[in-house]
């Protein structure tokens, strides 16, 4: 109504322009198409490498080198998978299991520690609280090399290098998880509830395990998911602290395979590509299954 009134008062040219852009939904068709075109182009850029990988994993070696990379040529996916899993005495299975062990168990432990710490920081006032929180935030700036090299020396002094512990122990302490847990606690655990539980005579540990943890399921899931992805993607730490093939992660194994051509002339390109596709699958499943959680995690991550 307001718009029509104004239109009668003002010169027609300007009002016409104004009317074509009242809001996003009813904006001019040309404008919408232009926006969509931009988004489609960006999506093609994002997706075509994944599509190419998918297609490459279905090809045998000749087709990989000779056919059009963006379209299928023969169906050899099962053979490729078989080859990946059996090559070097099923070592790929071992690497997959290792990745799941480090990412799964490590992140679970790390999430528990983070939730307890986040809760302690968010809902108690104790001497040194600010120091602990300053450590959490400050450690975002510490380069991995500064931590990893001395950690390697430390671990080798106590005989942990080249054991799963060298990967699992560092997962327990994750400042970013602590930060997230603190933010989630502040958003979900009201002081009144804690007071009520205390008046009812519940001990602090009991409050934490049976009330706080239960209310923090969503926050805990996000913290776990992001820690899992982090560990799954880790490269510098495993490269430094794991020496023997049998303890490697998927990433290390694929890195090693992709380098063999230079060293020995054996071409493992097909294996590397199929293996790379396989190592994405668990990430994709987790991300899709937990879409709701990780998006808030990503956004919160930006607020740190």
């Amino acid at each position: 109504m307001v718009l029509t009134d104004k239109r009668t008062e003002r010169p027609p040219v300007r009002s016409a322009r104004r009317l074509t852009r009242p809001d996003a939904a009813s904006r001019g068709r040309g404008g919408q198409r232009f926006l969509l075109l931009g988004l489609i182009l960006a999506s093609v850029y994002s997706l075509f490498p994944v599509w190419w990988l998918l297609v490459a994993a279905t090809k045998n070696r000749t087709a990989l080198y000779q056919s059009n990379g963006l379209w299928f040529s023969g169906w050899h996916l099962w053979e490729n998978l078989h080859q990946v899993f059996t090559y070097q005495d099923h070592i790929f299975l071992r690497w997959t299991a290792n990745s799941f062990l480090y990412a799964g168990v490590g992140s679970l432990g790390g999430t528990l520690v983070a939730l307890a710490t986040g809760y302690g920081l968010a809902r108690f006032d104790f001497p040194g609280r600010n120091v602990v929180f300053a450590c959490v935030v400050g450690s975002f700036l510490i380069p991995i090399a500064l931590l990893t090299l001395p950690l390697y020396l430390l671990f080798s002094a106590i005989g942990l290098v080249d054991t799963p512990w060298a990967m699992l122990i560092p997962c327990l302490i994750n400042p970013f998880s602590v930060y997230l847990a603190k933010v989630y606690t502040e958003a979900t655990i009201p002081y009144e509830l804690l007071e009520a539980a205390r008046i009812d005579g519940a001990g602090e540990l009991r409050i934490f395990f049976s009330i706080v943890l239960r209310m923090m399921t969503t926050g805990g899931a996000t913290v776990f998911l992001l820690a899992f992805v982090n560990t799954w993607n880790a490269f510098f730490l495993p490269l430094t602290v794991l020496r023997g093939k049998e303890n490697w992660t998927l990433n290390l194994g694929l890195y090693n395979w992709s380098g063999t051509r230079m060293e020995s002339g054996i071409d493992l390109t097909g294996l590397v590509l199929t293996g790379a596709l396989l190592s994405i699958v668990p990430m994709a499943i987790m991300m899709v299954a937990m879409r709701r959680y990780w998006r808030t995690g990503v956004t919160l991550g930006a607020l740190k």
Partner: protein
Amino acid sequence: MIRSMRWKGAAFTVPFQLGFVFLYLLPIGYAVYQSLFREQQSGLGLGGSTTEFNGLDNYAKGLSDSAFMGSILRVVLFACVQIPVMLFISLVLALLLDAVTSRVAGRFRILLLVPYMIPGVVAAIMWVNLYSPDVGPLTPLGELFGFHWNFFAPSMVWPSIGNLLTWHGIGYNMVIIYSALQGVPRELFEAARLDGASEIRIARSIKIPYVRGALVLTGLLSIIQMLQIFNEPALFRNVTPQTVSDSFTPIMIIYNQAFNSGNYHYAAALSVLLALILGLASFLFYRFTSKEAD
């Protein structure tokens, strides 16, 4: 009651504190300590070696080490090009998403986030092969249009890595900027439209200033990551070791000093230097961008 409560609260953070001391403070202290020594070969190198105090000599050596300083300069110059490009694309995509209906935005957001789901090492493996003249589709595609590009040539390695990082990073940065955009009060747009502002004008004068904080933040995170870049050049090195040397980036030098040359003391000094440079860069970036905002 109150007193004991305080200590109970502190108790929840004890596992973290212990772990932090063991996994963060102790290693950093140890690195600083180690950086003050050097390995001294006795005799002709046959009689084993002794460790002797070296003061700040390792740091002086690091600061005058042309390979190390060169690698930092290389990464910084690269960051000055790649990060603005990546953030600009992310910003444009976030603005596009913000301008379409929420149903359309939801669909495209998932598609644009696909690269972010892919582990860094796997992303590097994918692109190294996409670039490869043997198996990748990009070389024949170039031939089709008359380009004879070689993605691993010395002049092309950084653009190639830059494209990989941009591809990997735009989704994540777009989500952060987009969620900041969602916080802009919608009435502002209505008011601006009534005043006759075009959509582009609204984006420039309202939306972009509003997401400045998100841009500063994504920029800061990108700088921190970039100074520590390791995975991508390491994977490129597998294919083209003559172009991507083992001293291509600071972390590669530190890794090689420690594990291939067995020079822990020097590697420790370099990693402390890198930490200081990282802190300084973050501080300067933060100061510079927040001053501009005033």
